[in-house]
């Protein structure tokens, strides 16, 4: 009988302590800004993912025009109905479906552009900060030059160059927009990484690695990179909404993503150009609110992340 009694000790054996990843997530979740931001970003992601589903349910493609059902006798778009929940635009296209597809375009441009800029910028900043001296001077000069070019005007000239002799784009506009946005944001990452590395390269940790004869590649990979990456990732989240707005701005000006492909920028431009939003406000409100929500979401999330992860920037 006695041998069937289980030792009560077994019951209070502590579970394996939570992994650092879980701990970090818990710490993040305790910050209100992170929670709010994550929820809003989650909604935006859901919207982007649900675009094909909604499009299928309503039976409206993002570029399909419904002159018969979506425009009234005067040729003006109809307001919200059961069939067109956010009404239609001047060409009889479904505003809701286009707004949801616009979320896809925003993220498909913003995320790769910011990520490319982060990778390139961090690599350049690392080299610049680590190999101080002449390399650093040359790279800093390059960063200065990159930051001096005005974004919209230079983007205009690069996009104008993309138009071949016949007026047809040589490279798909989306690729060009991603490239241009990356081209204009790598310098911020480079400056950030350079500053962080300059501080770290004289730290006792790096000194110790040098003393035991570690190669520079090893020092960068094992000592410096893990220390700067959290800050770089937070800055990624700071830069992303700015880059999403940059894409929307270019599309708004008519040089980014071109209609009929939906982008919040060109939808807002169309609403403004045709003044139809004065008749049918959802035409402007759909993409406008979506863009605002996205920017607010990522801004809030990144502010929260910075409060938690960046010990140098205590909340004022």
């Amino acid at each position, binding site marked *: 009988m006695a041998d069937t009694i289980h030792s009560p000790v077994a019951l209070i054996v502590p579970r394996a302590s939570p992994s650092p990843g879980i701990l970090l997530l818990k710490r993040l979740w305790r910050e209100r800004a992170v929670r709010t931001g994550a929820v809003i970003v989650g909604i935006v992601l859901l919207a982007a993912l649900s675009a094909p589903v909604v499009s299928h349910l309503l039976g409206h493609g993002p570029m399909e025009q419904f002159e018969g059902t979506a425009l009234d006798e005067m040729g003006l778009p109809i307001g919200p109905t059961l069939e067109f929940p956010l009404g239609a635009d001047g060409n009889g296209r479904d505003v809701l479906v286009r707004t949801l597809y616009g979320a896809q375009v925003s993220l498909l441009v913003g995320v790769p552009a910011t990520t490319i800029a982060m990778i390139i910028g961090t690599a350049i900043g690392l080299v610049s900060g680590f190999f101080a001296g002449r390399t650093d001077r040359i790279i800093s000069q390059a960063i200065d030059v990159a930051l001096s070019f005005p974004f919209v005007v230079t983007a205009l000239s690069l996009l104008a160059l993309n138009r071949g002799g016949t007026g047809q784009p040589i490279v798909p506009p989306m690729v060009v927009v991603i490239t241009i946005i990356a081209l204009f944001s790598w310098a911020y990452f480079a400056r950030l990484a350079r500053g962080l590395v300059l501080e770290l390269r004289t730290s006792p940790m790096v000194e110790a690695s040098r003393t035991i004869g570690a190669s520079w590649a090893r020092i960068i990979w094992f000592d410096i990179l893990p220390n700067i990456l959290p800050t770089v990732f937070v800055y990624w989240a700071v830069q992303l909404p700015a880059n999403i707005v940059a894409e929307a701005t270019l599309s708004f000006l008519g040089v980014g993503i071109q209609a009929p492909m939906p982008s919040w*920028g060109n939808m807002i431009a169309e*609403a403004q150009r045709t003044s139809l939003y004065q008749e049918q406000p959802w035409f402007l409100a759909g993409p406008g609110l979506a863009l605002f929500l996205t920017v607010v979401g990522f801004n809030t999330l990144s502010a929260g992340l910075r409060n938690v992860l960046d010990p140098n920037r205590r909340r004022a």
Partner: protein
Amino acid sequence: MVKQFSSVVLRSISTLVIVLILSFFITRIAYRNPAAMLAPRNATQESIDAVARALRLDDPWYLQLWYYLFRGPDIQGAPMGLMHWPPALGYSFRKQAPVTDLILAKAPVTLSLAIGALVIWMTIAIFSGVAAARWQGRLIDHVLAFFAYVGLSVPTFLSGILISYFLFFQLSNQGIHWFPSSGYVPLSEDPLQWARHLALPWATLAIAEIGLFQRMVRASMLDVLGHDFIRTARAKGVPEGRVYFSHALKSALNPILTLGGLELAAIMGGAIVTETIFGLDGVGRMAIAAALEGDFPVVIGTTIFAASAFITTTLAVDLVAQWRDPANRN
């Protein structure tokens, strides 16, 4: 101090030179066969070749770079080369006019827009930022933070449309014509009309910047307010208003000046979106129109203009910051 000054100046100059050389290469790619663009429409190959010879387009690229930077052949009586005053930024084959003249004609609009917006946003941002720091954690701080946050998150083109919808369209529907929808009246002609025409664009530009700067003023004020010299000032009986606006603000001003310079430079290079929405005929609107119709010389000229404005402003801000630095006194 002189040494620091000169190193800052040298660095700006080298940046400017690199920007100019880079823009030369963009120009080389963009101007496809300028001789054919300049020659009459049904010109023979010989006359095109003659134009190319007159423009010395057959010369090797380093000579062309020299012409570009210093002194090139005239195009229809307009001198080329950047080392003039005002520098020749290219020649618009579409408009048959030197780009410098085109930009100078539009510059007053953009300059009025930028300076006016700067004055508005700095005034509001400083007062509201100081207020937020003074009553930190109180209701007013939260309210100001909320508005700053919203302002920061609305892209300019969206706030511009909303402002023109509510303050122009809806008001004029009610029969109130405070603000015109578009256009520009020179300051020298009628200051009141000038301000009326620019009020909505100023508001559009200011909204985003107020959010940014109010947060910055608040943060640097809070940073400074903990220092001993503020306690000393209070102890010796300096009125509270002077403690905030004279003692504390003076020390907190540097980051605000730096960022203010950068934002001002960015706007001078073309507040393209604002100019487009409010139909202001400024540098930015010219650039976008040129880009859409493929008038490369104007686009590149504007790029050079904006980059130079950026570098000059950054330099000026740097010098002011160094001059203000107490460590550099005497």
